[in-house]
């Protein structure tokens, strides 16, 4: 009977996917176009999509890095920024921008809005779904553009590419450092936790649930189950019928979640360098705690925000200093698989 249960599950997930797509469709009116340059998108272009709120500090480097990798067009949703993010983004030549004042949490952390934009503009394109504090890297990213990676994935019949989110942090209290917009954030945030990750396969969606890193070590020692999820699938050859389920951790249809090998071999994978712990985090934490917009059970994370407000030092003796992707590859945090 197990095949029957399996078939029922597949059927339920199909309806779940349709429900989520419809949800995105209903939310479309919340988006007001600020500037739409999507007519610039060419058939082979690589698109990035992101929801932002007051990210003026991070955006210059974010855009520069991903442009250098070869992202051709950016789709942004601005969720009620008041620091000039909207003005900054609308001036960028390769950015299409929408704005909304509706709830981030109600929009499944921005995913509903982006799903609608992806339905409209990203079908058939390789699409990179990121937060403004995520810097995507992959094996050979310094010498091979993103185009080389997606062509290689195409040749290997892969439609999705997984990445581990790596929390980067400074040595010393987070606020004791200076960061100017546009600087390389990893001059300040040059440390990370190299080997304390735990993972399990999720029975329903079959994605890997990865936890660990500095936030698990520092803030969730009493309740490791609550520690943030670190596995993501940010790069997908998009189809209008695809949908992200929770943030970019998992997708439907679920075969897109199979970005790992189970036969002992190693597939290729990348890293999202997480710039969350720039000095601005201390102020942002108070605000986020007030807004309660970032977690499904936001109240449970008060302790986490309180700890962040106290300007903590995340560094420890066992921290590793970031050098290059080759180092991350050798440490086993990502893999080039057979992409030599």
């Amino acid at each position, binding site marked *: 009977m197990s095949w029957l249960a399996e078939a029922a599950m597949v059927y339920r997930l199909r309806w779940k996917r349709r429900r989520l797509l419809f949800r995105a469709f209903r939310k479309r009116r919340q988006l007001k176009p600020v500037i739409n340059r999507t007519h610039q998108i060419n058939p082979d272009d690589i698109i990035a999509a992101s929801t932002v709120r007051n990210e003026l500090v991070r955006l210059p480097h974010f855009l520069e890095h991903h442009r250098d990798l070869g992202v051709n067009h950016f789709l942004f949703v601005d969720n009620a920024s008041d620091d000039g993010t909207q003005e900054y983004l609308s001036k960028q030549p390769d950015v299409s921008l929408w704005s909304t004042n509706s709830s981030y949490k109600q929009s499944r952390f921005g995913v509903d809005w982006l799903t609608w934009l992806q339905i409209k503009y990203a079908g058939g394109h390789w699409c990179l779904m990121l937060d403004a504090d995520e810097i995507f890297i992959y094996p050979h990213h310094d010498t091979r553009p993103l185009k080389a990676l997606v062509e290689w994935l195409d040749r290997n019949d892969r439609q999705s590419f997984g990445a581990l989110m790596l929390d980067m942090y400074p040595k010393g209290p987070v606020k004791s450092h200076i960061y100017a917009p546009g600087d390389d954030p990893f001059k300040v945030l040059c440390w990370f936790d190299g080997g304390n990750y735990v993972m399990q396969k999720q029975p329903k969606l079959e994605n890997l649930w990865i936890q660990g890193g500095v936030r698990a*070590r520092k803030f969730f020692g009493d309740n490791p189950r609550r520690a943030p999820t670190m596995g993501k699938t940010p790069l997908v050859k998009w189809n209008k019928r695809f949908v992200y389920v929770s943030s970019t951790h998992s997708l439907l249809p679920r075969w897109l979640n199979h970005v790992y090998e189970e036969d002992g071999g*190693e597939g290729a*994978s990348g890293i999202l360098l997480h710039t969350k712990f720039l000095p601005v985090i201390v102020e942002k934490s108070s605000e986020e705690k007030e807004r309660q917009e970032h977690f499904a059970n936001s109240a449970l994370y008060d302790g986490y925000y309180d700890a962040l407000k106290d300007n903590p030092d995340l560094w420890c003796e066992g921290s590793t200093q970031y050098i290059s992707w080759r180092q991350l590859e050798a440490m086993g945090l990502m893999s080039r698989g057979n992409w030599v």
Partner: protein
Amino acid sequence: MLVHTAFDRAEQVARHWAAAGCPIVFHADKAVPAKTYNAFVKKLSDLPDVRFAQRHRCEWGTWGLVAATQSASEVMLQEFPDVRHVYLASGSCLPLRPVQELIDYLVDRPHTDFIESATTADVPWTIGGLDQERFTLRFPFSWRKNRFLFDRYVAFQRSVGFRRKIPNGIVPHMGSQWWCLTRQTLSAILEDPERRHYDRYFSKVWIPDESYFQTLSRLYSRQIESRSLTLSKFDYQGKPHIFYDDHLQLLRRSDCFVARKIWPYAERLYRAFLTDQAGAMSRTEPNPGKIDRIFAKAVERRTRGRPGLFMQSRFPVEGRENGLTCAQYSIFEGFSELFENFESWLAKMTDMRVHGHLFAPDAVEFSEGQQVMNGALSNNAKLRDYNPKAFLASLIWNTRGERQCFQLGPRDTFKKIEWDIAKDPNAQISVITGAWAVTLFKSNANFSDIRREAARLQQIESKHLEVLRSQWAKARIRIWTMAEFVEAPMEPLQRIIDEIGKQ
């Protein structure tokens, strides 16, 4: 030169060949739109020794590729009577050494055909199991577009025992499709009175472009060197590796004349190899073997992975891990209870990092009371117990190069991991049974509490020993009773330490 995409690169390479005086015949895939093709033809119209062959539809693994090669070869032999060697290249081939060096090399070997050509029995290349069968079955369905029908039809033919007859008793040979043949051999193949016969046979062979010329050249060649002058590397599925900018040094080191496939956007490679490197006339033999190791390692990485590593793109199901851990480690049970200062003594006697009870209930006892180990592995017991298997695998992985050792006892929380340890061939487990009683004996607790605690620990220990003695245990396990051990303690200790390998 067979081209189907990246025409600007093909043009660039063509000009490079032409500049060295080589005539070129192009074959463009019939699927290429007329507009693109005509533009390409027009662009090359200033080169006198360029011709274009009749176009065929070239789908991977089909006869079209051979037909294309035949047409182009005929044009080449007819139009350019001075040509002695014909080099089959593709639009994504890139000459790595000055063309003049290749010309000199071929002038020195006027009667040699360079074509990789081996029987199916000789080589284990073929991926997917179709080796001899590709010559004896029929393949009317496309492998790329109709995999299901392809597989079903193969299975059907196997089940009814169907075999095609190989004409005239020729011996099928296979090899890289990129060859360099002499005029004599090539013309003999093309003008063979039996050619219609052969063509009909090979047109239904699986991937004929890897066997048509490879087989027939064996009939006529005066001298065959069974190797391709074109460097190409294949991954574990038989797909060619693509060369990017960062392969520059690697390609230089290979000393090969031509390489494929080059990524069309690899600007640095095209710039480096297509600028004239006059002067440095080296006489080195091509040596693709020099760079083999890197590609062999990639296959290994992709198919076996790094044992003991669990990560976002390697999460083997149980039984496929190639070991839970990546290196050997030692577990001592009962030793630190029996001997005072056992841990510091052991650390002094060996090169190991000696931890206390890593699975102690309250906190992880890392060596020297460290709060975090390599890789920022925390001593928080809750984090450890959340996934003890990952904890142990991470510890051993993070400390590669330094052997780890830790204490274990019935007071520890090891229930979730004891089977994993017992089944791990990297574990060396030495047990003194009953040694936990020493601590109880020395304690100042009430008698009934001691008795209750002793019963509990004994029960845990006996279950643990069952696991260690089970038929599935793969660790190197030694078990002594406390009485045995106390009687002659030095000898077993010496054996353990000898095994660890460092006095």
